[in-house]
């Protein structure tokens, strides 16, 4: 049952009184607007011989009288309004206005409600007004209640959707074994991305979990379950605009004026209904659970998945996902024509609403997920990126590229070692920062012939076959692979480097035999270790390692590949770019010269000024007055539009004054005639009651008669 809220101006700061206080303040604000209009008119010295003037004077007297009365007596508010989050079917509001008045009457006898009005029959005057919204459907009642509550400066609790949780995006493609080409799945590992034909993106998300602390009455449970049961759709927002979705702005006038008296306009950020910056996307994809059931194949797991295959390669896309309900209008090409932003009457901020096809059923839009970014790389055919990267790192770590360079090592301009610097110094220091635990891996020298350990019978292992080297290399290959997905333009140059002619000739020994024509062949051959090694003896593995370790050309080839990889990932190479200003940094004296020139031009212009200025300033004053008046009329039109938004059919029962106490109220309701709300027992009714009681309620009678 709805409770009464009391208002006593002499007991400030009591939370329970706030709702009624704000209602009264809203009504007083309306009266104050009229007062402000009168003041503005007198400011312009307009001859205002209109009958509206005595009306305004009377209104001002009423405001004063109303506050005087409030000091002596109390005002009570009764808000019998639906809460869609707790009663989504509006079951409590069925039964038409008869049910409403029964609830109202019962509230007058609710002994558990300390704020209910209790006028004493015979010694106190009291009165009340009932404003009833009556409808034949849930949506009709919701629309009316929204208007009614907005009039009182309040909001109805709408179904609010929180942001979806665990939103992720993956490239999606056809798995190598799949047939038919329609079986598109998300690729969950970076390594796999380079091995399949990519077709689009897979977006995944889950319902948000309840983050609120539990309460003993399980109210949070009821609220969250009901909001999840309200049939919600999903909106996927997508854009490929460089830099991500653009925050929406609109031109708005400020309180500042330019020299001619015109207000200075500036672009202000438009916000959504939740107060977040509104970001506009290029394309909107609506997912309706009732018509797109295939998309929800994972629904039973609480997970949603959507595959977007209408994307271009080598383009970065930005996505967001959000829940919504209501008939959102989306064009056939996936765009949305947004209406002009509205000014929020409370915050004075520009608010962007979502277009709806049914004004009685507005779109309720939930909060969005964070922005997800993904790019579909254009992967060159016949180039196994991850394997090549992995083998490059394995070879580099085996040859000691992670070890620091000796202090006396010297090289010529081509990178060749000079002055007795050994070949094994080439490439050292290039992977120092990313070697991690590899700094303990030292290159080995193998005796010829290689002999098995007398105890284990195993032959010595080569560093590229160490588990730690393979793990570190695989990890780095994944990191670089991820980076390549972002910078896929680098894939083709990388393939050219690896598959093009080898820059420097390498020894034609061991596994390098027949595999010495490209860097790709070189790194693959270096890591070509047969299964069973080192238990099984393979002289080629040792020969390959020894040849590579001591060969300057092999090391320089590998260093070229390592430096290429490092150039776009793993920290880049010095020097960094800096921003400079042409005048300040390149030609420092020119700035002062230009400022001097501007000053001289200004001085010249001043010299030509004459008495004509005085006439001009008078004309400017008139122009300024015209501008101000034009703006004022524009403001009046905005007020009229605002007032029109309150137009809706409500049923009023005004019982201005009775000395009969609560029995008198009951009798008044029961005997009331006139145009009663028509919906009947099958309809839905809700509304607001405002009541007063005291020894003298004349001010309320006058004010309520005027307001309602």
């Amino acid at each position: 049952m709805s409770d009464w809220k009391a208002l006593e101006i002499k007991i400030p700061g009591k939370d329970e009184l706030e709702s009624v206080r704000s209602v009264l303040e809203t009504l007083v604000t309306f009266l104050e607007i009229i007062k402000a209009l009168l003041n503005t008119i007198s400011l312009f010295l307009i001859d205002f011989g209109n009958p509206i003037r005595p009306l305004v004077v009377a209104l001002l007297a009423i405001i004063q009288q109303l506050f005087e009365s409030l000091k002596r007596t109390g005002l009570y508010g009764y808000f019998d309004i639906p809460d869609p989050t707790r009663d989504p079917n509006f079951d409590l509001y069925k039964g038409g206005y008869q049910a409403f008045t029964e609830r109202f009457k019962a509230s007058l006898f609710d002994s558990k409600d300390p704020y209910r009005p209790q006028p004493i029959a015979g010694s106190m005057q009291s009165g009340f007004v009932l404003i009833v919204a009556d409808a034949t459907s849930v949506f009709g009642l919701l629309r009316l209640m929204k208007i009614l509550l907005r009039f009182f400066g309040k909001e109805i609790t709408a179904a609010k959707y929180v942001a979806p949780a665990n939103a992720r995006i993956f490239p999606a493609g056809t798995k190598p074994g799949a047939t038919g080409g329609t079986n598109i799945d998300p690729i969950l590992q970076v390594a796999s991305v380079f091995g399949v034909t990519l077709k689009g993106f897979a977006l995944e998300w889950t319902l948000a979990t309840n983050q609120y602390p539990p309460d003993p009455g399980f109210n949070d449970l009821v609220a969250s379950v009901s909001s999840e049961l309200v049939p919600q759709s999903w909106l996927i927002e997508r854009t490929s605009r460089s830099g991500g979705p653009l925050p929406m702005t609109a031109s708005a006038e400020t309180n500042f004026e330019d020299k001619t008296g015109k207000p200075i306009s500036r672009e202000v950020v438009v916000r959504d209904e939740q107060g977040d910056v509104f970001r506009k996307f290029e394309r909107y994809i609506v997912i309706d659970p009732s018509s797109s059931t295939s998309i929800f194949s994972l629904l039973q797991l609480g997970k949603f998945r959507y595959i977007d295959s209408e994307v271009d390669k080598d383009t970065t896309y930005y996505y967001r996902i959000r829940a919504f309900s209501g008939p959102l209008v989306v064009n056939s090409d996936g765009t949305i024509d947004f209406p002009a932003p509205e000014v929020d009457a409370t915050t004075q901020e520009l608010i962007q609403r979502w277009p709806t096809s049914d004004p009685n059923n507005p779109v309720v839009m939930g909060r969005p997920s964070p922005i997800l970014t993904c790019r579909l790389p254009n992967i060159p055919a016949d180039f196994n990126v991850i394997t090549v990267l992995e083998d490059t790192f394995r070879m580099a770590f085996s040859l000691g590229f992670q070890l620091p360079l000796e202090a006396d090592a010297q090289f010529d301009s081509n990178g060749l070692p000079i002055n007795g610097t050994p070949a094994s110094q080439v490439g050292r220091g290039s992977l120092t920062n990313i070697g991690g635990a590899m700094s303990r891996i030292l290159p080995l020298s193998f005796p010829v012939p290689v002999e098995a350990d007398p105890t284990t019978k195993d032959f010595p292992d080569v560093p590229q076959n160490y588990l730690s080297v393979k793990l570190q290399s695989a990890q780095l290959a994944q990191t670089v692979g991820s980076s390549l997905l972002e910078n896929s333009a680098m894939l083709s140059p990388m393939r050219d480097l690896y598959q093009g002619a080898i820059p420097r000739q390498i020894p034609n020994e061991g596994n390098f035999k027949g595999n010495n024509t490209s860097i790709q062949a070189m790194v693959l051959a270096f890591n070509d270790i047969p299964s069973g090694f080192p238990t099984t003896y393979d002289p080629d593995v040792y020969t390959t390692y020894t040849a590579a370790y001591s060969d300057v050309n092999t090391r320089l080839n590998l260093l070229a590949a390592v430096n290429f990889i490092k150039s776009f990932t793993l920290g880049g190479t010095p020097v960094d770019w800096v921003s400079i200003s042409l005048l300040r940094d390149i030609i420092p004296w020119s700035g002062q010269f230009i400022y001097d020139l501007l000053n001289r031009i200004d001085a010249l212009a001043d010299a030509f000024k004459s008495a004509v200025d005085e006439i001009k300033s008078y004309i400017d004053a008139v122009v300024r007055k015209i501008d101000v008046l034009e703006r004022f009329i524009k403001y009046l039109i905005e007020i009229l539009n605002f007032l029109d938004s309150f137009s809706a059919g409500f049923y009023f029962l005004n019982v201005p004054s009775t000395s009969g106490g609560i029995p008198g109220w009951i009798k008044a309701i029961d005997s009331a005639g006139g145009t009663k709300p028509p919906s009947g027992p099958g309809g839905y009714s809700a509304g607001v009651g405002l009541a007063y009681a005291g020894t003298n309620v004349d001010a309320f009678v006058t004010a309520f008669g005027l307001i309602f």
Partner: protein
Amino acid sequence: MSDEKQDPPPEWKYKEEFGIVTQLKAAVKATAVASEQELSNLRRKLERLTYGS
């Protein structure tokens, strides 16, 4: 016979607009008309100042 005045029973009324909204609209419209009139006076004055009478 009682001297107490018997009030007529109250009546439900259907309204498309709140009373205060009607009053406000009337005030705003009247202000707009007066402002338009003042505006046209000013424009005439400006024309005379700029181009002469």
